[in-house]
């Protein structure tokens, strides 16, 4: 009896660890629910009931009419698809009986989020925003301005994120810097004939694309709670970005884009 209860406890902990890993790294609610349930069933539970809200998860594991419930707080660790993939692989292996609960625990404790090197991120995000500028008919000179501005902004953003500054403040500061660099290059600098679409493109690195897509997907699949929370969070981040842009535009006396 004693060992069975402790076994039940352990599996409950593993399931909620799986759910919290997924939620922290930006998986949609349907996936969090699906994978936690599948892991629990693979490890011998009868059913897993889970309630997801924006900053916590409550999970019950039920076996032979015994039920253990536990709660974990969720703090956002940033979007990391590598972690989501790894957790999913562990769940699939557990389902095929390749891992028992001890192996799952060991694998979970060894999971480490993948981070690409900073210089590479700065380079590729600069190129991405430059492509956005060209796609929006900003011309090659506009793309160059966008590349410079968004690379500088991305560097600042990574520095601020590393210091764990509040996300909205990070977004506002980053937007201010991107707008200042691109706006000053166009308005006061050497690129006087460049399309102003370059200013807009240089802040596109801050668009909360993943949260917005997750928000609609959540609401569409019936998780209205988390969907609304994600939508609100993404709107607040966009608002913070826009305050950064407007501050920069009015400080330097620029006109914005048409």
């Amino acid at each position, binding site marked *: 009896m004693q060992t069975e209860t402790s076994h039940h406890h352990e599996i409950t902990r593993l399931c909620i660890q799986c759910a919290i890993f997924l939620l922290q790294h930006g998986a949609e609610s349907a996936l969090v629910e699906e994978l936690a349930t599948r892991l629990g069933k693979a490890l011998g539970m009868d059913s897993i009931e889970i309630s997801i809200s924006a900053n916590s998860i409550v999970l019950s594991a039920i076996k032979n009419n015994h039920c253990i419930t536990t709660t974990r707080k969720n703090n956002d660790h940033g979007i990391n698809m590598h972690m989501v993939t790894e957790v999913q692989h562990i769940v699939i292996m557990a389902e095929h009986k390749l891992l028992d609960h001890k192996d799952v625990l060991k694998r979970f404790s060894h999971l480490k989020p993948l981070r690409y090197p900073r210089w590479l991120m700065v380079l590729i995000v600069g190129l991405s925003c430059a492509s956005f500028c060209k796609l929006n008919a900003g011309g090659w000179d506009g793309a160059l301005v966008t590349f410079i501005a968004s690379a500088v902004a991305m560097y600042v953003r990574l520095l601020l994120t590393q210091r764990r500054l509040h996300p909205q403040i990070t977004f506002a500061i980053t937007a201010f810097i991107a707008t200042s660099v691109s706006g000053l290059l166009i308005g006061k600098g050497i690129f006087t004939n460049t399309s102003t679409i370059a200013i807009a493109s240089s*802040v596109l690195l801050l668009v909360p*694309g993943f949260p917005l897509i997750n928000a609609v997907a959540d609401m569409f699949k019936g998780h209205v709670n988390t969907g609304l929370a994600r939508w609100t969070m993404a709107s607040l981040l966009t608002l913070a970005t826009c305050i950064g842009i407007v501050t920069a535009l009015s400080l330097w006396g620029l006109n914005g884009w048409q």
Partner: protein
Amino acid sequence: MAIIEFILALIQDMVLAAIPALGFAMVFNVPARALPYCALLGAIGHGSRMILLKLGLSIETGTFLSAILVGVIGIQWSRWYLAHPKIFTVAAVIPMFPGIYAYTSMISIVKLSQSGYSEPLFIEAVMNFLKASYIVGALSIGLSLPALWLYRKRPRV
């Protein structure tokens, strides 16, 4: 001649769309092995939308159909990669994301509160907000639909 010009423009469009798809895939920390597929899928998505827009569809409908295409391909690829399709598909639709509409709308709202009510500003805020919301909805629902409707019963992976 017009056909060749269009094909050249399409190729340029697809190459330019592949770069942000790759870039944002790296921002989302997609595993390195899946990165080339994100770039390819981004190019396919944006290229197909360009063709649909050329055929006279509105930007919302075109985005919706392209997102469905991306979703279907993403599900096929997720089978052999044993991962959720969102790993490929979200980064791939980022080039179609209505970022400039969203910013223009939000900036108009900030300006409305700064300089008082004026009709052109309000129209700009509302129209851009609607456009941005519809496109985000089209992208997200387009990505989710294939999974919901082709694989209702069994798990995808």
